[in-house]
């Protein structure tokens, strides 16, 4: 088992999806054990792939041909279009495999407790398996077409899981919103892929990169292509202005939010941009767009997270914001920092989601106004949640600190100072809203007695994955260090391995100045959080009254949703009315019905030609024969 067989990773859950989707009713407990076993196998196989990857990666280089591991011809149209089913393994892939397989396994374990007794329990696990298959295929695919296929497949899984409680109107609508919003980006992605194929003559990512490096593209053409590509990434990764679907996606079951909308699917956009980074390097304008969009999103997400009262939505805005961080790193060309943050973020953000799920499971409430003081009732959950929060806030030595640090360092070296300041401020905001969430949920006085009284700690199947993820949230950052990397088999730490073709990875360095500054910011944020929200949060109440407009702006999510609603109502529906009228009058009444009436009328007139008398028919036939004979004779 090695990189050659990496196709097995998506194949196993795909087979399980088919099996479970069809037969989950016939299996004990809806086949959840089978799904978990399959995922466990994937984790083990991913480990083997990683080991094999390390052995073929010596001195910062692959053994020749080792990275392009598996390919067979899928379809061929003429000489111009060759579609291959190909897999590709490099440092990014290995990292993503670890994230996807581990988090999926944890979430599945958690779901056994969380989803217990739900209707469609088996179907839930089937879709989870299907999602895992699509996501694994996405990160192992070596060409853009296969990537697009899995891209859509994860979108489908996301749709199915957001709308899992489709009996609830809001869930069905959130599922539609997520699907349609990401679809807007997906169309861009498809256009980008087609443009790249047209320019490079291949769907193969490495070939496209080579062509781009060789100057095979017109600069403007490539810029446009990459912007389209980034549109897809922005849609999937909930970047401004397509971020609106992610908060609504919280309608899905909480484990799903942890898996899809925190750790895996939403980072597909980050993965895609990282994967195509060598091409982005050729067109710095496109890269700058990534940078500014990322920065905007990071700031917007963090500010919106400050005022939201739904725990899961706070975490969703936090995810949006953190994804913005990753895109900022990509925008300055630091694949290493982005992927590192992706890696650590996956663990602590899924931990936070699972923690919020534990709260919801224990109390039945998810608004901070109804919670509070839960640390007495849910001690383990509280502990894990705090671990995740501290990691998110970026406090030494937890995972989030190292990766966020890396992004700040990259930005400091590669972008103007104001951007760095904005990102640092966002970092501060991150610590503030995280502290607020923890204080309002777990400390202070219980605001809803009933919910508090009935609160209970979650069962072990839910706590175990949280424990594991909490552990990872603590230690995941250390893989960056050279020493730890050597022990794990990555010479020079993970950072030296995670790079794309044409990029050199770099060994992480500890920048004391930035690190101290960032930690100080994080601590300051926590202090501010305590000042405003400790106890009865009177200061926060007062702060709200100082600037009601600002508060309103944030609560209304910068009016983005209103803007879209108005756009749809006025522009699109207006256009649709015109089109509908055109369709009704011109196409239907004149075209379709008109044709039918014309034919009917003509037929009514012409039917009298049909006398029914055989001699008439014989005459017509004879005339035809005579004409044919004349024609035939005339030709000789």
């Amino acid at each position, binding site marked *: 088992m090695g990189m050659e067989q990496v196709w097995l990773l998506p194949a196993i859950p795909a087979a399980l999806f088919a099996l479970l989707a069809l037969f989950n009713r016939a299996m004990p407990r809806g086949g959840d054990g089978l799904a978990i076993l399959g995922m466990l196998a994937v984790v083990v196989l991913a480990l083997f792939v990683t080991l094999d990857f390390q052995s073929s990666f010596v001195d910062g280089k692959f053994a020749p041909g080792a990275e392009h591991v598996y390919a067979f011809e899928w379809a061929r149209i003429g000489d111009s279009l060759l579609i291959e089913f190909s897999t590709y393994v490099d440092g990014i892939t290995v990292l993503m495999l670890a994230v996807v397989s581990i988090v999926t396994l944890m979430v599945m374990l958690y779901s056994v407790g969380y989803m217990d007794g739900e209707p469609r329990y088996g179907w839930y696990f089937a879709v989870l398996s299907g999602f895992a298959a699509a996501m694994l295929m996405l990160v192992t695919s070596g060409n853009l077409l296969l990537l697009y296929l899995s891209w859509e497949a994860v979108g489908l899984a996301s749709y199915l899981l957001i709308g899992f409680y489709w009996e609830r109107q809001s869930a069905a609508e959130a599922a539609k919103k997520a699907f349609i919003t990401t679809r807007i980006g997906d169309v861009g992605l498809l256009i980008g892929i087609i443009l790249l194929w047209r320019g490079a003559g291949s769907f193969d990512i490495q070939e496209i990169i080579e062509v781009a490096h060789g100057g095979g593209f017109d600069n403007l053409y490539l810029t446009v292509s990459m912007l389209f590509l980034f549109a897809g990434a922005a849609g999937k990764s909930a970047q401004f202005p397509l971020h609106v679907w992610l908060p609504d996606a919280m309608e899905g079951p909480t484990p799903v939010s942890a898996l899809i909308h925190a750790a895996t699917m939403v980072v597909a956009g980050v993965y895609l941009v990282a994967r195509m980074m060598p091409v982005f390097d050729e067109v710095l304008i496109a890269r700058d767009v990534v940078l500014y969009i990322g920065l905007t999103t990071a700031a917007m997400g963090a500010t919106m997270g400050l005022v939201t009262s739904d725990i899961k939505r706070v975490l969703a805005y936090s995810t949006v914001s953190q994804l913005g961080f990753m895109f900022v790193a990509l925008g300055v060309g630091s694949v290493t920092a982005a992927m590192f943050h992706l890696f650590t973020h996956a663990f602590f953000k899924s931990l936070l989601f699972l923690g919020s799920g534990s709260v919801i499971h224990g109390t039945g409430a998810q608004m901070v106004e109804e919670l509070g003081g839960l640390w007495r009732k849910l001690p383990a959950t509280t502990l894990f949640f705090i671990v995740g929060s501290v990691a998110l806030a970026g406090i030494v030595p937890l995972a989030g600190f190292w990766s966020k640090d890396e992004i700040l360092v990259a930005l400091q070296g590669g972008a103007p100072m104001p951007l760095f300041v904005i990102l640092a401020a966002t970092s501060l905001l991150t610590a503030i809203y995280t502290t607020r969430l923890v204080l309002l949920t777990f400390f202070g006085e219980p605001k809803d007695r009933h919910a508090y009284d009935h609160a209970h700690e979650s069962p072990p199947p839910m706590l175990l994955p949280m424990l594991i993820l909490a552990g990872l949230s603590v230690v995941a950052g250390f893989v960056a260090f050279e020493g730890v990397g050597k022990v794990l088999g990555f010479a020079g730490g993970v950072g030296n391995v995670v790079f794309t073709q044409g990029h050199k990875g770099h060994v992480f360095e500890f920048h004391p100045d930035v690190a101290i500054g960032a930690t100080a910011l994080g601590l300051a944020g926590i202090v501010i959080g305590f000042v405003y929200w400790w106890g009865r949060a009177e200061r926060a109440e007062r702060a709200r009254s100082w600037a009601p407009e600002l508060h309103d702006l944030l609560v209304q999510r910068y009016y983005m949703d209103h803007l879209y609603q108005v756009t749809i109502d006025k522009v699109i529906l207006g256009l649709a009315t015109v089109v509908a009228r055109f369709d009704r009058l011109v196409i239907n009444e004149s075209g379709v019905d008109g044709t039918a009436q014309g034919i009917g009328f003509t037929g009514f007139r012409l039917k009298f030609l049909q006398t029914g008398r055989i*001699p008439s028919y014989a005459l017509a036939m004879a005339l035809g024969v005579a004409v044919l004979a004349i024609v035939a004779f005339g030709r000789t």
Partner: protein
Amino acid sequence: MLELLERIPFPQQLDRIVIFTGLVAGALVTPIAIVLLALLIFDEITAAEVVFWLAAAVIILGALGAVLLPNIVHATLSLVIALLGVAGIFLLLGSEFLALVQVLIYGGGVTVLLLFGLMLTNAGDDPKVTDGAQKPFAFLVGILLAGVVGVALVDQDWAKTEVAVAPFTTLGERLFRDFGAPFEIASLVLIVALIGAVAVARRDRDEDDDTVEEGESS
């Protein structure tokens, strides 16, 4: 049965009709024959040509009679004359066998069959309008088709070869050796047609009442 035969107009008229047809045919053909004979005597044409023109005249006149005569029985008898002329053409083309077959089958069988058909469909009682309204068009198409085909055939530059007599042995070998399977199939076709004709034309049992009524009414 006797009653049925009496209803048929044909037997009473047969002699008259045959004599009439023969006279008309003779009257039309005789001048042609005299002219041809005269030409033969003065060595203008060969004997074979005399036979050809005579046969051609008989065929054309017979055919015209068959399609133009208003009386159905006359038309049918006219057909017989035309088909006998065709037998003469076969003789000229050296196919005695075909000529014999033509006389036997057409002159005998088919004609009798047609006349029986006439009898059984009470053709004598029908109105004399035997031609449809599309006669002018039919005329046009007939002329057109004959003209086109005739011109096309004459236009072709045929090789100058002599007529060869088809020996009976050759015909026999061809028919029973090379065309054995089609021959057998043809026999099958004949028997199927025979049975089919009987099956189609057979009076169903429940139509017997109908027959009685028919007899009473006539």
